[in-house]
């Protein structure tokens, strides 16, 4: 079981709510995914309307909302938006997204660290979206982030785990859960992330834009379970060469021969 802050999750698949062809398809897909943590862009919902079309479709016992700040460009804007979200949506959980570059939506490390420090002080459970930067992850951990969410590749790119070498370092060093967010394009990418020890993944585009989003959500559910199971079973390490002879150390066994010849 995965624990973040004070919550435990049976599912290690977190999901998003964007890009679906309708709110009904979204709801069905999220149910098929088994996801218990679902991120919602503040800009897409009417926070003051309990009948909001997206929020209405997320009202299930097992689904926890994770509001995100997509659209803000600075720490200051993020902190303001977070406070409104907390009040309106009745949750202190926050996916902190500060990507001032609207083209590739690359996260701003400086502003994200600043906002995390501030938001933790204000009592938020902060899950920051960031580049796969090991040092930044440690800094965020020290600032009180509840988890870190490094990217696999640019948001919505479906390019998979381009940052895998850095993700491995982050996973090795982290004391808080590591959620691989962004870029996961297929169930095999998700399985891979879990196999290398990520605590969870967040998937949106690959499900929403699939030919059959509901079926794809179910496929991700299985892949995430398989990846985690494989991680727990401890993968046998692949080896590059066989170990038949020891040309560099054989001399040690020949040492006694030398003595004799003396």
């Amino acid at each position: 079981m995965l624990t973040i802050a004070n919550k435990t999750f049976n599912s290690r698949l977190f999901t998003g709510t964007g890009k679906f062809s309708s709110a009904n398809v979204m709801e069905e897909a999220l149910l098929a995914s088994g996801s218990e943590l679902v991120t919602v862009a503040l800009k897409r919902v009417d926070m003051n309307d309990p009948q909001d079309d997206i929020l209405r479709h997320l009202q299930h016992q097992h689904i926890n909302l994770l509001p995100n700040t997509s659209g803000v460009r600075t720490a200051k804007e993020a902190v303001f938006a977070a406070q409104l979200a907390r009040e309106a949506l009745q949750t202190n959980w926050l996916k902190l997204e500060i990507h001032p570059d609207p083209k590739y939506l690359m996260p701003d490390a400086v502003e994200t660290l600043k906002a995390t420090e501030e938001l933790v002080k204000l009592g938020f459970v902060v899950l920051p979206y960031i580049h796969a930067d090991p040092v930044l992850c440690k800094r965020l951990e020290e600032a009180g982030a509840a988890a870190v969410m490094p990217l696999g590749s640019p948001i919505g790119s479906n390019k998979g785990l381009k940052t895998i070498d850095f993700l491995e370092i982050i996973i090795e060093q982290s004391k808080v859960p590591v959620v691989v967010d962004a870029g996961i394009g297929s169930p095999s990418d998700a399985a891979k992330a879990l196999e290398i020890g990520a605590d969870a993944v967040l998937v949106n585009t690959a499900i929403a834009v699939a030919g059959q989003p509901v079926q794809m959500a179910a496929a991700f559910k299985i892949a995430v379970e398989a990846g985690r199971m494989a991680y727990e079973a401890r993968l046998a390490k692949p080896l590059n060469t066989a170990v038949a002879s020891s040309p560099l150390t054989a001399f040690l066994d020949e040492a006694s021969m030398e003595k004799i010849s003396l």
Partner: protein
Amino acid sequence: MDSFIDVFNRYNWNEVKERIYSKTAVDVEAALGRQSRSLDDFMALISPAAAAYLEPMAQLSQQLTRQRFGKTIQLYVPMYLSNECNNICTYCGFSLDNKVRRRTLTATEIVQEATAIKSMGYEHVLLVTGEANHTVHVPYFKNAINLLRNHFAHISMEVQPLDEEDYRELTREGLHTVLVYQETYHREDYKKHHPKGKKSNFQYRIETPDRLGRAGVHKIGLGILIGLEDWRTDSFFTALHLNYLERTYWQTKYSISFPRLRPFSGGLEPKVEMVDRELVQLVCAWRIFNQEVELSLSTREHPRFRDHIMQLGITSISAGSKTNPGGYAVEPESLEQFEIADERSPAEMARVISSIGYEPVWKDWDGALQK
């Protein structure tokens, strides 16, 4: 100060046109085969040679759009605040020399219009005016934004070009997006179509997106008025402009619009006709060139065309638009800026969007994100 004009001046209209028209099937195929496309590839995609590749272009464009935007279409609506104008523009119903009754909405009337628009479901509103700097000025805009910002999630503006400081001030009040179309990048032709008024200053207009970028406006809309000049050459310059802006003002979002010259009472006939097939080519070329830019289409286009092109690269549309100040509630019968071609209501349009398997998105911004 550095601006796009320095880049623009390095290009010659006729040479660019010549380059576009000499593109061949080989260039088009190369452009389609690449991972990312240069300005030179864009030339190939908008060239006559690409006409033979319309179907593969449409398929690629659809796929790239869905990847980035999902199966969604955003809805916005224009609110005309004023038709007072001191410019003479050969193609526009609000032109100074056009004898129509002029009207600028009062605060009470703005709220009346807002209520009518709101009841149609809109959260994204586009404020439109002519250019009458003595009455429809920054304080007027400021007041309008203040009246509207609690009613709408997203406020855009398509009005006369302003100074950098003005944009900064209006953004603080809650303005999100500014649309400013160059109309044409052909300097001499621009002069011909804008013989009188502040708008005849080509350089001030072409440098407006620079002022917007420096002021930190969230989104900038570019476009040309299709029909004034050769649309292929004008579109290349728009792409050149966007390319420059994306690199310079990297925190800003961008959108492109495709207004085709529409008839109005006593108006200009298009110099260069663009047929539907060519508009499809242009929209697809844009998407294949740039996956992130928003592509917007107004009610100038007829219903059947809109229903199809919405699935080929367009990401935002208007519906149920009135192009006269007070058109929704205050004075529905006054003269419009141009005739719209798609008269379906927003509710009807939303049903159409759902029926083709897309989600109509009414809200994609929140005033809380820019405080």
